[in-house]
């Protein structure tokens, strides 16, 4: 079983505390919800956990290994849709797939189909609607069948049909054994999807309980 252990994480930037003593253990096969107000530190937490931001102190262990030494695949969806505008969605995903070289063209096409995008569509990325961009970001997050999946405000720009599809994908990923973390301020996302809920407040993370956010 995959496991993500977070202990004593602190992060500050220019004297401002962004994360304060974060401790948690996340296990594979479960979906964890992280909720909290805007600016509470949810995105920073995800960036620190995925190694995009350095933490000042503490440890983040992926299956017992430090993130820099870990070979685990990490899937991330954040509010950043800056793909190469001059390429199609498929080409953008192929570029990312080429970094770790663990999947091929067929896997990329399958991921696009799972999120409801046509892999043969030659539309350039800059012509994509916001919803299509969000689906493409989700496709890049799941295409390598990651052991750890981080989804930050995933349903922000997706329509109702897209939200249902997204719920289904998250459940499938958890059933596969992945550790799934979802940050959202949308109560329905948290209530419908998560097994355990954490609250991010004043840059600290506290366990809110077993899926009972009102």
């Amino acid at each position: 079983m995959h496991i993500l252990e977070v202990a004593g994480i602190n992060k500050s930037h220019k004297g401002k505390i962004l994360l304060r003593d974060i401790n948690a253990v996340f296990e594979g096969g479960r979906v964890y919800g992280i909720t909290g107000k805007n600016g509470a530190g949810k995105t920073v937490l995800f960036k620190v956990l995925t190694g995009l931001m350095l933490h000042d102190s503490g440890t983040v262990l992926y299956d017992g290994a430090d993130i820099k030494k870990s070979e685990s695949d990490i899937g991330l969806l954040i509010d950043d849709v800056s793909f190469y505008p001059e390429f199609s969605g498929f080409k953008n995903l192929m570029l990312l797939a080429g970094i770790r070289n663990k999947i091929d063209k067929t896997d990329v096409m399958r991921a696009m189909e799972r999120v409801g995008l046509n892999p043969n569509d030659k539309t350039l990325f800059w012509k994509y609607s916001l919803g299509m961009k969000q689906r493409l970001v989700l496709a890049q997050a799941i295409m390598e069948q990651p052991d750890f999946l981080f989804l930050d405000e995933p349903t922000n720009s997706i329509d109702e049909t897209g939200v249902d599809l997204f719920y289904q994908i998250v459940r499938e990923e958890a059933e596969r054994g992945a550790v799934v973390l979802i940050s959202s301020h949308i109560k329905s996302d948290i209530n419908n999807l998560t097994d355990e809920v954490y609250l991010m407040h004043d840059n600290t993370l506290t366990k809110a309980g077993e899926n009972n956010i009102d």
Partner: protein
Amino acid sequence: MIRVRSWKNILKILSAIPIALIINIDSFLSAAGSVDMNVSRYFMSFFVGEVTYGDTKTIVYAMENLTFVFLFIILFGNSITEKMEFVPAYYFTRIRNRGRWFISESLKLVCSAFIYDLLYCVVILIISVIITGRQIESELFSTFMCIFLVSAALMIIMTLLVNIFTLNVGTTFAFIIACLIILVLCICAILCQNDKAAFLNPLSYMHDNDTKIDFLGVGILYDYIIVAIICIIGYRVMEEKDI
């Protein structure tokens, strides 16, 4: 997909050939049939000028002959850091050790600079042989190597600096800062007015004692040490950069 980007890089490198021809065309046309110097000296005249420090004549790279260097910097100035501009989050969740990644990208840049520079120098050399109409002399090899190595070092230093500064201040300011650094080094060397200070000047490598040109091998080595230092700085910057 990756092949598409490789082709773009190959085209950028091959641009050295038309660049060599276009920016020097007036020199070729005006010199045809009227050059009375050996191949080595004529070849050098496309890159360097002569400055006298006391009794010593030092040959320095002339800014007006460095268009090809600046074009390389423009072509490759954000080759490494463009990944920070597009898809940074999704790119770097797949690359855990960003420092090591920066070093490998820097090595690719070094290779590109060497090939681009070699193409440029070879085109100039061929034209020099044609225009002077003379036999290739023995000193040509060392002249060629010196010019080739120094130009490549200059391109690599500037391009790496632009890439690193781009992370914090954007490409335009990064280019200006990199130029200013080279300029400051040149001014330091000129103000010091002695042989040793020439090492500060990345554009100065040769002493001309009229009969023979002495190359400052140590100076070239110094440039490549700077390249290594910049790579280490880049490694640290990338490691500590928050995305």
